[in-house]
């Protein structure tokens, strides 16, 4: 592949192949392929977007459209621990906005996928996570954390700091 500056692990490449085989039209695999890339690299760089376009025989513009439309794609690297706090209606009725403000303050972040200087944390608002009945909720990386309190959030962040710093 002439244009592919990005290299991926054999495992990721094998999973991409599997994903493509699931669909009658390989263009359908654009989301799964980009998801696999983000899983390995932590974000989808312009080079990996070009790689995806070549792999699936679609235009780079179409890949870019997808990357910019779906908010879970990261167009720049995020922290080792990416925190997404729900501030939608059910969470906010039970303190979700206070949780978000607390994370902003504690981490010194604005909450637009910005990253702490040590690269450990990034923060953003997220829209309803379908965890309304156990609000307030957030995603820590790929894991749901629910029925949050300020104390619980402190515990979670402090544990990440400890685990992430060595």
């Amino acid at each position, binding site marked *: 592949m002439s244009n592919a500056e990005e290299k991926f692990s054999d495992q990721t490449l094998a999973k991409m192949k599997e994903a493509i085989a699931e669909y009658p039209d390989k263009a359908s695999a654009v989301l799964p392929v980009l*998801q696999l890339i983000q899983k390995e690299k932590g974000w989808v760089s312009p080079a990996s977007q070009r790689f995806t376009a070549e792999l699936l025989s679609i235009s780079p513009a179409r890949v870019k459209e997808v990357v910019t*439309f779906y908010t879970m794609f990261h167009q720049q690297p995020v922290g080792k621990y990416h925190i997404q706090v729900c501030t939608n209606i059910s969470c906010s009725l039970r303190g979700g906005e206070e949780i978000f403000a607390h994370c902003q303050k504690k981490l010194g972040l604005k909450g637009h996928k910005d990253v702490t200087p040590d690269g450990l944390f990034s923060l953003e608002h997220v829209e309803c996570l379908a965890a309304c009945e156990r609000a307030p909720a957030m995603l820590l990386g790929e894991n749901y954390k629910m029925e949050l309190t300020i104390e619980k959030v402190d515990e979670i962040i402090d544990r990440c700091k400890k685990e992430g710093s060595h």
Partner: protein
Amino acid sequence: MEKVISALWSVPGANTLEVYKKHGGYEAAKEVLSSWTPEKLIEHVKASGLRGRGGAGFPTGMKWSFINRGSPKPKYVCINADESEPGTAKDRYILELTPHLLIEGTLICAKAIDCHHAFIYCRGEFYDQIAILKKALAEAKAAGIVGKNALGSGYDIQITVHSGFGAYICGEETGLIESLEGKKGQPRIKPPFPAVVGLYNCPTVVNNVETAAALPWIIKHAPEEYKKFGTEKSGGTKLLSISGHVNKPGTYEIPLGLPLSEFINSPNYGGGVWKGRKLKACIPGGSSVPILTAAEVEKTNIDYESCAANGTMLGSGGCIVMDETTDMVHSLRILGHFYSHESCGQCTPCRTGTNWAHRILCRIDDGEGRPEDVDELLKIANNMVGRTICPLADALAMPIKSFLTKFRSEFDKKARREKAA
């Protein structure tokens, strides 16, 4: 009440094939795939009164009947597991606790329209739930339940789990189809409806997770048995999440027709408004349906007809409860933010309407409002309704109109920058 969907929720290990089969799992699918004709299946489900549980409430059997099974093109089933309507947290339970129930329901949907490749579209944030579903699917494939000659029936069926990646609009069925085709999830103009031109331009049915999960029980019983749970026109049971200011937030299976006030207050369900406070308002069916005042809650039952008679909708079953201290301006501002953020951008009344509404709501809420703002908001809402390809614009317009009609004085007060009483 016997549970149709949630029967195994408290059974340990119900997400495994072994336990699921011990409780009669895959018996319904085996019978349907082996010996039922699509006609028999469609008639049975029509007679049960099952309606789509994703929000629109369209009769499921009738939806299937729109598919031309004689078409030479492949037919597709898409299961909508893109659960994202604020207030709604029910499909998550099915994915986590009984993924095989969903797979079995998917097999039944497939048979109804002669489909041999079904897709389950999950929202991307459901990392854990997708892993559970994929594990269950692998078990089902290894056991010959999904694949060639499924359950020894001679029927071939492939199921693909597909993950979205953070776009509310992909819960709209044509947005979901576009997304499955590897595009931005922008809804299509209808007609043609998906039943005629759907996924890959082929006949397609999109069914909600909860709809599919109700099917195994319905197949095993006479259709009237399912209907008996509900009211004359709203047959069956429904999963309802209750969130916000209640003592026992949670997700419960209820017989349709249950009084809304009982659902909020009964110790079996919501357990009453928290902190001994009074009820101010309730959004019964997910954030896009019109809000009810405490007085209206008393008159409303949880079924399609009673909700409609009281000016709201059952929707996807996300019941959001607000106590007497709730700031309605701020609450509507949150909804304004959500819908403006999630507008896909292709229709002007939605793209600019949701954004203008949100900006006006922000300035009222922040104490920078103008007296004319409230009427301006109503004007914007009226110009959004019914003027777009999909109902996302309506999904904000309806809350704006109902909040402003029912709680107008709060908005006026804040817009005029009066100090709160």
